[in-house]
């Protein structure tokens, strides 16, 4: 698979804190790449550095061979990169429809795409005109992901989408990720829930203290309990 996104030796500082200390990562086109690690490992900072919300102080972030570091967040988003933050990032005062229209930017929402999205997340159709602030946690997450895929994007960055959600909703999200993979999306997914990671991941990177400590295939990591324990400790087991 051709690499769509690559990070090479990326360092990021937030204030006087050195958060990313040389991150090397590749997201191949058409694959769902997992980014795992303990709390505070630097996973969210990695996603924010890619989308330009934090500026890398050294290294290279390349998307289709284009250097993203000098670009501002809106320019990066317009290259076809969608970002679903950990807090979902929905606009609570706007309706479900308005949230999706905003995500489509200047274009009209394609009817076929919308039907496909409603198939993926039925609550979005049901609560089409409801203010997003009134949705449940799971529905908000569906809207957040729906907003990222309402237009075909080249790359989708998703930060801990299953955090705090009921198992039934997590199951629905796993199905949605599988469907997105079938549709050819490239996804970089940060996740603490190992069950989710095992169910949908193709490749995997594990982070610790601002560095990548393991890179490989998700199926191999899922098979190797010793490696899981060594890399991820108990923090992930607790979420299984």
């Amino acid at each position, binding site marked *: 698979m051709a690499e769509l996104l690559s990070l090479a030796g990326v360092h990021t500082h937030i204030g006087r804190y050195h958060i990313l200390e040389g991150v090397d990562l590749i997201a191949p086109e058409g694959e769902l790449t997992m980014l795992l690690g303990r709390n505070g490992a630097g996973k969210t900072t990695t996603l924010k550095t890619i989308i330009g919300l934090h500026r890398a102080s050294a290294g290279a972030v390349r998307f289709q061979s284009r250097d993203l570091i000098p670009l501002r967040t809106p320019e990066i988003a317009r290259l076809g990169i969608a970002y679903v933050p950990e807090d979902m990032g929905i606009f609570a005062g706007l309706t479900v429809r308005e949230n999706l229209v*905003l995500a489509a*930017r200047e274009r009209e929402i394609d009817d076929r795409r919308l039907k496909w999205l409603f198939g993926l997340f039925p609550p979005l159709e049901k609560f089409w005109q409801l203010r997003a602030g009134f949705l449940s946690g799971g529905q908000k997450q569906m809207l957040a992901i729906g907003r990222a895929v309402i237009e075909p994007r080249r790359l989708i960055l998703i930060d801990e989408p299953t955090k705090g959600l009921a198992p039934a909703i997590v199951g629905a999200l796993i199905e949605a990720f599988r469907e997105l993979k079938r549709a050819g999306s490239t996804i970089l997914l940060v996740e603490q829930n190992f069950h989710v990671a095992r169910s949908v991941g193709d490749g995997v990177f594990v982070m610790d203290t601002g560095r990548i400590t393991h890179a490989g295939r998700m199926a191999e990591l899922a098979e190797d309990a010793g490696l899981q324990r060594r890399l991820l400790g108990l923090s992930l087991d607790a979420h299984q």
Partner: protein
Amino acid sequence: MIDRLLSGDLPRGRVLSFLVLAVVLALALAPILFPGQRNLDVAARICVFIVLVASYDLLLGYTGIVSFAHTMFFGIGAYGVAIASVRLGTGWDALAIGLIAALSLSAALALAIGLFSLRVRAIFFAMVTLAVASAFQILASQLSWLTGGEDGLTFRIPAVLTPGFRLSEEPILGVMITGRTLLYWGVFLVSASLFLVMLRMVNAPFGRVLQAIRENDFRAEALGYRTVVYRTSASVLSALIATLAGAMMALWLRYNGPATTLSFSIMVDILLMVVIGGMGSLYGAILGATLFILAQNYLQDLMKQAAAATQGVPLLPELLHPDRWLLWLGVLFVLSVYFFPSGIVGRLRGVER
């Protein structure tokens, strides 16, 4: 039809719809329903302030920008018309030139302030606008050869808009239609049109982006929106509409001075009207401006009557003395903010949801 006219953004809720409709009808028919110079003056002020407050709500309520320079743009519109009328003579061409010059100056200033300072944090932007507005007010007072200084400028307007002009020799519906009445309806129509334009703006994709920026500008950026461009655009549009409101005010008064359009107390009034009406809803501007200006103009009369009615009761006539109207105005604001924390519109919509 009405749905399209209001850009699909109806007041929502029976009480709110009734109140808005009542105010609009009362303003449209003010020369017939409330004859008298003072009443017409109050109605004209309400029309102008609805536009001014709604244009400020575009900034504060829809985009989350706190600016103290709104009266500066209001003043630029008023001075544009006044200076042009004094210097170029009484005529439509002078009014048009004054208006175009004022709009150009406002657009340039709003663009400069926006591009230089909308990247910084909200509090710094507010400080920059406060400094610029104060500087402009001092400038207007000092450049007396141009602005008339503290005395301001009194000017003449085309004869067809003056009280001496009669549309017919006979009263129509019991009202003598003078140039003043025509000017009032002109102010009403322009105000209504500007309000509808603003309603269209906030319900267009542009308005949704502004609301998204207000909620979280980082999220809006992550969706691909250049927030500085949108904020600056909102700032310029709001300034242009405030300028038009200022021009209407000057035209109505046939006078302009620093205290009439540039004073900081007007800025405070605008803020109060936005908060009382309800931020983030243009209908709030209609109710906020109407209530505030009615209270400003008629509270003293009401208190005079109340004081007379309570003669003989200890303390009450003293408390209700017309000289204490500002105290009661203050009490009314405190009560309205306490009982309507989300403004009248927010409260009425919340109750009926």
